[in-house]
């Protein structure tokens, strides 16, 4: 067996390459965090906030807010297949598709269709996909219109119970099939309702015993803290996951958006949803 002795020169070149790569990854992380932590929309009443914790230096989760001309806000959350740099590159592509689609489309379902039309060929070529949940929030009427492309539905907490959203509101993931149509659904929210949008990194967080955090644990803690402000809820969720995982390295990106409903001008009671068992 022969070993080639590494020359000091090649070691020096390797070290230069490593530090250049490290610097570039940190720059990419800065770019991603700047794009994700853009200006938060100011609501006349209530609050909306989002946060993401990548499993690695950069991640494939995505959230965004897009103010619409009629006073509504388009809220989107997405999860790119995979992790790290490849997922982050596709996340940026997804953001571009969302922002561009939001300029011209009238509803969340239309936005998802436009995003799928824009991204399908590239994602199929790469053997990848993105799940996206898109919704239009109207703070004046309290109406949340939504559509899903393979993404889990948000948890809505009213008082001491979680409401069940329409389980049928799931279309095919972005990049799954061409020319997809996504149905719009709507729910009337009430003052102090909490809407929690999330990616599966939260419910699939694992501890050292291999146990999974699971949806019912998340629902329970949201019911417990649903009446507090968004920042408190966000902190409580992150601390609960940390406690559960006992410091085990995070396997998947974790992202959440918290919408706390303020006083709605026209509070209608058109939504009698069944209670979701926590």
């Amino acid at each position, binding site marked *: 067996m022969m070993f080639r002795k590494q020359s000091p020169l090649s070691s020096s070149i390797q070290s230069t390459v490593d530090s250049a790569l490290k610097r570039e990854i940190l720059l990419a992380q800065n770019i991603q965090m700047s794009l994700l932590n853009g200006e938060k929309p100011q609501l006349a009443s209530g609050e909306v906030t989002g946060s993401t914790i990548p499993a690695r230096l950069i991640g494939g989760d995505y959230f965004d807010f897009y103010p619409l001309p009629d006073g509504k806000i388009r809220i989107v959350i997405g*999860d*790119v*297949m*995979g*992790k790290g740099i490849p997922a982050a590159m596709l996340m940026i592509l997804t953001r571009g598709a969302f922002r561009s689609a939001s300029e011209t489309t009238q509803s969340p379902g239309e936005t998802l269709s436009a995003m799928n039309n824009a991204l399908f060929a590239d994602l*199929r070529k790469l*053997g*990848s*996909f993105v*799940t996206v949940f898109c919704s239009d929030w109207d703070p004046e009427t309290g109406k949340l219109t939504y559509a899903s*492309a*393979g*993404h*889990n539905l948000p948890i809505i907490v009213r008082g001491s119970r979680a409401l069940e959203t329409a389980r049928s509101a*799931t*279309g*095919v*993931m972005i990049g*799954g*099939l*061409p020319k997809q149509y996504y149905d719009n659904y709507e729910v009337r929210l009430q003052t102090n309702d909490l809407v929690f949008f999330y990616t*599966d990194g939260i419910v*699939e967080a694992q501890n050292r015993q291999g146990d999974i955090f699971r949806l019912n644990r998340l629902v329970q803690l949201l019911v417990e803290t649903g009446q507090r402000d968004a920042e408190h809820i966000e902190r409580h969720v992150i601390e609960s996951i940390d406690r559960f995982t006992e410091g085990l390295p995070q*396997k*998947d990106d974790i992202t959440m958006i918290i919408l706390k409903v303020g006083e709605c001008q026209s509070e209608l009671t058109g939504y009698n949803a069944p209670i979701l068992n926590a």
Partner: protein
Amino acid sequence: MVVRIEQQKVGEEYWIRIHGILDFSTMDQLHEDWVIPDGTSKMVIDVTHMEFIDSTGIGGILNLLYSGSAKQLAIEIQGLREEVKEIFETLGVFQIMKALQAGGDRK
């Protein structure tokens, strides 16, 4: 964390059995030496012994579905646990299978 992929041709059926964890760290094994044998008319993906799957693993299953569809094979997924079935339903995997079987994605 390991995955073991068994491939077996039984008559005209091509069985792919996935054991263990199919995720970001093990997915490469699903790509290795991937050839659908001649004379196959049906692909069966057996996930009875699959312990965990993440989005990368699901991407791998989707690529199998597309490969099978490109060869116009009938495709079946066997042994889905309820929680994995729920994830597949949310993502639209069954809708994709149906569309591929109907030739809906062939351009």
